[in-house]
């Protein structure tokens, strides 16, 4: 078999793997200069007395998982509607707030849980799906551009979340609730990894055994011809937003569980940017159409890799978006059709010049 470098370079996974190599090299360089160890994993005893794995790589797996869950939904929405949902951070606040309201039964400092955790989670799922349905309605039925339609919840979401709990911050009393965002006793791997794995497997099975993936791509590539082929584009777009709503609810469970409470203005702040970045980094077209779920999930972990790396360089958390914005711009510039065409022309003209010399 001949090794074809051109074919390799046109592969979708080239960008994510290149990003991983660059980030690893940067961290290795930092380790050598500062005599630190980025890649070591230690076993430590945490606050609740469990021996668990610890280290930067575990942090990436832990915090990247919620992003990976969101990336599943975001990929589908991007593919179906050719736009992105920028309200995910705000809807995480809404779903989390509703979950707290149900779990604490309206008390700020309850002694025991008002309802079982599963009921709280189901309520969060319903609320997340309602938010998704609202966005989906505006996009699919009223044909508003996805980003504008979701701008509504992006602005109002955190206000609604505060309003659900009367602007109070209830604290969940049950220690079991904290397991979702940290560790289950006796298991050294973060629980979020298992939750993410469950979500990813569900999504993969859904795409494998139903036509959803094929239909979504068809709607994203050409809406009117997919309608002529008997697909209902409105329903497909609507479903993609509902699935994103479910992903948001799961992410909200993790986010709220990490704190056992909520902070309306800070929870999941700027996560929409990360989720969109994950989809873009995976090499998926932001204008819709074909998608690769695995690439997006890989992209999500790379984003967390980037964030962790930036934190190592003592970047202030409020300044992080500036650096990520530069990464986004570089990504979209290199994947834009105009630049690609120019690069292809350049390489073919060089090849032609070589032939002449020979």
């Amino acid at each position, binding site marked *: 078999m001949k090794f074809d470098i051109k074919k390799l370079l046109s592969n979708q996974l080239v960008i994510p793997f290149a990003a991983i190599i660059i980030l690893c090299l940067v961290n290795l360089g930092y380790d050598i200069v500062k005599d630190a160890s980025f890649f070591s994993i230690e076993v430590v005893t945490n606050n609740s007395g469990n021996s668990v794995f610890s280290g930067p790589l575990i942090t990436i797996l832990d915090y990247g998982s919620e992003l990976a869950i969101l990336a599943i939904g975001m990929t589908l929405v991007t593919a179906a509607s050719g736009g992105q949902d920028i309200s995910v951070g705000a809807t995480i606040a809404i779903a989390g707030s509703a979950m707290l309201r149900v779990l604490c039964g309206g008390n700020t400092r309850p002694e025991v849980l008002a309802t079982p955790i599963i009921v709280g989670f189901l309520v969060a799922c319903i609320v997340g799906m309602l938010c998704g349905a609202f966005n989906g309605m*505006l996009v699919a039925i009223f044909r508003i551009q996805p980003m504008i339609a979701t701008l509504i919840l992006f*602005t109002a979401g955190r*206000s609604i979340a505060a309003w659900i709990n009367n602007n109070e911050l209830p604290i969940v009393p049950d220690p079991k609730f904290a397991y979702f965002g940290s560790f289950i006793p006796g298991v050294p791997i973060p629980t979020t990894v298992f939750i993410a794995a469950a979500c990813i497997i569900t999504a993969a099975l859904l795409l494998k055994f139903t036509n959803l993936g094929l239909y979504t791509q068809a709607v994203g590539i050409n809406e009117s011809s997919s309608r002529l082929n008997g697909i209902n584009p409105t329903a497909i777009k609507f479903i993609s937003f509902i699935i994103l709503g479910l992903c948001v609810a799961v992410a909200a469970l993790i986010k709220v569980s990490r704190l056992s409470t909520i902070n309306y203005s800070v929870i999941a702040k700027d996560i929409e940017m990360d989720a*969109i970045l994950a989809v873009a980094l995976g090499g998926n077209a932001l204008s819709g159409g074909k998608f690769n779920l695995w690439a997006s999930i890989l992209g999500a972990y790379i984003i967390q890799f980037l964030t962790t790396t930036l934190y190592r360089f003592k970047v*202030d958390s409020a300044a992080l978006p500036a650096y990520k914005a530069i990464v986004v711009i570089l990504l*979209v510039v290199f994947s834009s059709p105009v630049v690609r065409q120019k690069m292809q022309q350049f390489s073919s003209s060089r090849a032609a010049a070589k032939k002449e010399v020979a």
Partner: protein
Amino acid sequence: MAAETAEKKKASIFTRVSDTNLLLAITIVIFFAMYIGAVVIQGGGFTKPQMFFNILNSNAALIITSVGMSIVMISGGIDISVGGVVALVSMSCAVHLDMKGGSVFGSMLIALGIGLAFGLVQGFLVAYLDIQPFIVSLAGMFFARGMTTIVNTAPFNVANEEFKNLMNTRIIIPGMGYTNRKGIYIDAYVEPGVIVAIVLVIVLFAVLRWTKLGRGFYAVGGNKQSALMLGVNVKRTRFLSHLICSTLAGIAGYVYFLHVGSGSASHAMGMEMNAIASSIIGGTLLSGGVGNIIGTLFGVLSLSTIQNIVSNAGLDQAWWTGITIASMLCIFLVIQSIVMTQKKRALK
């Protein structure tokens, strides 16, 4: 037969008005209905002219950004980086004046420079590299917000004398004042930023109405392909629309800075949303090609009147503002979508 003619007549009135004028009329009617409703029901503050001028004073920056936003939206794009640019300008100017001991003129140049720089980069990426304007300006928004905290993390008030004099300048409007309870006559006033905003509105209205560039914006937003065939330089027009919008955001940043007199990373949070909402309420279509600067001005006024009504009604918890604006935007988006589909159907 009679029913048929009646239907035809109805359709013709509906379709004869241009999209721009139809949506502008809706906006102006809604604004006056709302303001008169507020005067009748809540009375009090709304009966004084100063109430109206206060709306202008506190929204001069929003008027300028919304006008820029309308121009971008008319030419078929969007720019959500404006809020971030406003925050970055206010912080940079505050640092320049206070920590670096710079002059007021220098800070104005900084404001313009930041606006121009954002416009150049975003315009180039959108127009010449054909990247979605939303992604570009989303990155621009996060970049501006991040840069603001890199420039300076903590919020602070400016103490520069020269600047404070400018900040406290009041322009008295004769004959509109009122006598307070103690019998002292208080003049009605506006801040210098309002004058800047009004001048910009008039100038840009004229540009959009009567210049080749202005008509180009409508042509490109309406249909790129046909604009290209008519000989419009589509790429340059889109580039200029983003350049104008970001430059206006820079100017708006200075006006905002002049109004609040401080630099903070949390300034103008969600201003892009308010600007988009004002443009949409003012009759600018998201799909491009339709819109009016005067409508946008009324859009800002409607939005802030609603906010005043909400806070006067005793619902002044911070969250109500977000919820009202969002629901108003939602209603207008849906109305636009319905009106335009109906009109298309009537034309068929």
